[in-house]
């Protein structure tokens, strides 16, 4: 339960934006995908950095939006700056766009770089104080001596080798716990599972205190997730952290079947903004495919797809070549009726044409296989 949540942050009353954030900000939204941002100046007039299909427009009732749709409107305590150098960024974009067989025409490093947008994504860092009664089974490694034997009639009998095996002895343990678990990250946005996975790759130690200047650099997404939902998502990781500490306290090598009856008596929520680059490329159907880049490490995430259209075109080209070879072969075969050696040449040509014709399916097959492997891997 979150009934005893601390007074800060204030999830109840929305702020006056400019007064709170320290400089003029606008609440803008995309009419197509519904993503809303805090943006300043020219940024507020640009294409939506999420769906890339529509231009952003200012919200008519920003205060109402803050009250009803967003969980929290105040500036963050911490911000992770964009630390990626332009060279590293360019290298990562290059790496993302390479190695794709028959890539879409628009999937080029230049296109991706040109369309880069900066955006800050909100994450809660939760400090939790917990008292609990816990129980589990502690596993202690021990070694036993076993034997492996080999018998060979020709080599004269038995050969024995002693081996040491590690086994685990399980014993029940119980106890009490009164600990603090600081800086537990949980996303502050609803949905976007892929984004959540990417957000897990940040090192939170590099965060700075918020300054108004920071927010001018990029679009800012505000938390739209109910804090109770966020807290529920955090509970399993807190339990895992507690289980690991109980294992260490019991001097055990393993711990299983950990259960606890917990009471979180103090919670501190800190809003942290994480840097993210967003860009896109157009696929065969002219639909924008988003690409995200971690603004700290540069790790790229997005759909890497081969273009079936280009692959088919390549296949057709090979087929055309095969057709040409068949035509020449047939002419040679006809000529062979008068000049016998040409018959053989014509025959060979027909065989080559057949092989080339079969090879025409290779490019579409490669493209299909690549797209399938990307789906399985994601």
């Amino acid at each position: 339960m979150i009934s005893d949540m601390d007074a800060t942050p204030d999830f109840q009353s929305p702020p006056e934006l400019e007064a709170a954030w320290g400089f003029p900000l606008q609440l803008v939204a995309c009419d197509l995908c519904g993503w809303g941002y805090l943006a300043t100046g020219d940024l507020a007039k640009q294409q939506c950095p999420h769906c890339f299909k529509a231009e952003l427009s200012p919200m008519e009732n920003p205060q109402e939006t803050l009250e009803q749709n967003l969980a929290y409107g105040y500036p963050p305590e911490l911000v992770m700056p964009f630390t990626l150098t332009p060279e590293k960024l360019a290298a990562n974009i290059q790496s993302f766009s390479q190695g794709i067989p028959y890539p879409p025409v628009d999937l080029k490093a230049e296109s991706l770089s040109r369309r880069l947008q900066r955006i800050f994504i909100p994450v809660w860092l939760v400090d939790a104080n917990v008292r609990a009664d816990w129980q589990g089974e502690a596993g202690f490694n021990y070694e036993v001596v076993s034997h492996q034997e080999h018998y060979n009639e020709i080599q004269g009998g038995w050969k024995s080798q002693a081996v040491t095996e590690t086994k685990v002895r399980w014993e029940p343990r119980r106890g009490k716990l009164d600990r603090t678990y600081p800086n537990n990250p949980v996303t502050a946005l609803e949905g976007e599972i892929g984004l959540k996975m990417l957000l897990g790759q940040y090192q939170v130690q590099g965060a700075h205190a918020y300054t108004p200047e920071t927010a001018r650099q990029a679009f800012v997404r505000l938390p739209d997730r109910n804090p109770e939902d966020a807290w529920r998502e955090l509970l399993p990781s807190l339990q895992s952290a507690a289980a690991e500490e109980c294992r260490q306290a019991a001097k055990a090598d393993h711990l299983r079947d950990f259960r606890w009856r917990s009471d979180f008596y103090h919670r501190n929520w800190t809003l942290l903004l994480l840097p993210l680059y967003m860009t896109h490329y157009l696929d065969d159907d002219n639909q924008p495919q988003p690409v995200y880049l971690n603004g700290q490490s540069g790790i790229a995430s997005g759909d890497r797809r081969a273009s079936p259209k280009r692959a088919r075109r390549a296949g057709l080209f090979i087929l055309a070549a095969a057709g040409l070879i068949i035509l020449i072969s047939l002419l040679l075969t006809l000529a062979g009726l008068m000049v016998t050696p040409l018959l053989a040449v014509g025959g060979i040509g027909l065989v080559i044409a057949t092989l080339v014709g079969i090879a025409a399916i290779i490019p579409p097959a490669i493209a299909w296989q690549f797209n399938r492997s990307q789906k399985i891997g994601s």
Partner: protein
Amino acid sequence: MTESPSLEKYVPVPSTLEGIEVYAPAPEVSAPHQPVVDFKCPQCGATTAYSVLDGGLTCTHCGYYEPPNKPVMGKGAEEFEFTVETMQRAAHGWGEPRTELECLNCGARTSLSVGSLTSTCAFCGSNKVIQREAPQDVLRPRFLVPFKIDSAKCSELTQKWLESSWMTVAGLKRLSRLAEFSGVYLPYWTFDSVTRAAWKAEVGHTKTERYYDNGEWKDRIVTEWRWERGQVQLTIDDLIVEGSQQLSRLLLGKLKDFDLCDLTPYEPTYLAGMQARAYDVTLEQAWDTARQEMRERTRQACHAQASTSQIRNFSMDLDFSAESWRYILLPVYVAGYRYQDKAYQVMVNGQTGTITGQRPVDWTKVGLVAALAVTPGLLLCLIGLLTLLFGGVGAAIGAFGLFLLILGGVIDAVIIAKAMSMDDI
């Protein structure tokens, strides 16, 4: 978890992290270690001893009876694994070369030999059980099979056994002087294991084939060799290995038909008035012996899996797993008797009554029987040879005589082997 876990029967243990308390199950409270247990009747003060017939501690003076405290465990008796620590410590044995014991009853001093677990004072007859502290708790005897047969029954069984074989001297029962049986708890190790083996070998399949030779078709038997493979898994439960080298291992080996379903937790009560020995064959040595037995059984199982019994180039890889062991005491009666100034030994399984031992062989009798076994064959062979000179029927008689001679030879070999095993161990 809706309710807090109860900490009843749990004790705190050291924790490495501040803010976290750790509790472990409270260890079982064991009775304080008594180096020597003296057996005195609480009613009359006389010496008490374990009674086989009554199955408990009894006083022959006032009839006081005290049953054992612990229930029979049987094959569920706890087993131990071959941990590295145990193997290292087992090699050290019990560590004490000799012990001087002062009798609390009469003050006499007795010197105990290595490995003795009990003592009866030679002066006042009081019974004592010595409980040495082993280098590791698991290396003291924790289970035993109590005596089920008393010494009177032993004597009765032995008397019958002495004259049960025609090979022994006539009137052995009457001529020998049988000493009284002493019950002694002997140390044994039991071992459990699962063996998994993958084998391969060339297996011979005989077949008859026809071939053409010198203008005619003939048959011959040829062996065709084919590679075969297989896998065997054996579960070996409670393999018993002697833990003492003080008595004849050959005789003890014939007494191993103990029923471990009677295994009971160790109590000094069972040893009162009996002799008992600690192990002098270490766990490692006994496990070596047991492993040899286990791998031979596995090898035979692999052979049995082959499609025929003609096998060559046999090889196998064998893996032991789930190995465990126990250190137990098993009941044996030992007695000696003399015949013509020569000493012979008899042992009786104190649980089942199986007897084994040495018996003097009447070699004259054995020789006569052996001669009788080959005589018909020999005679027929001679007759056959003679008649062969004079006619053809001798061949048939000679062949039959040869057959009887070989059969007689085989019978003689068996008889002589049995007689030698009886006489000289």
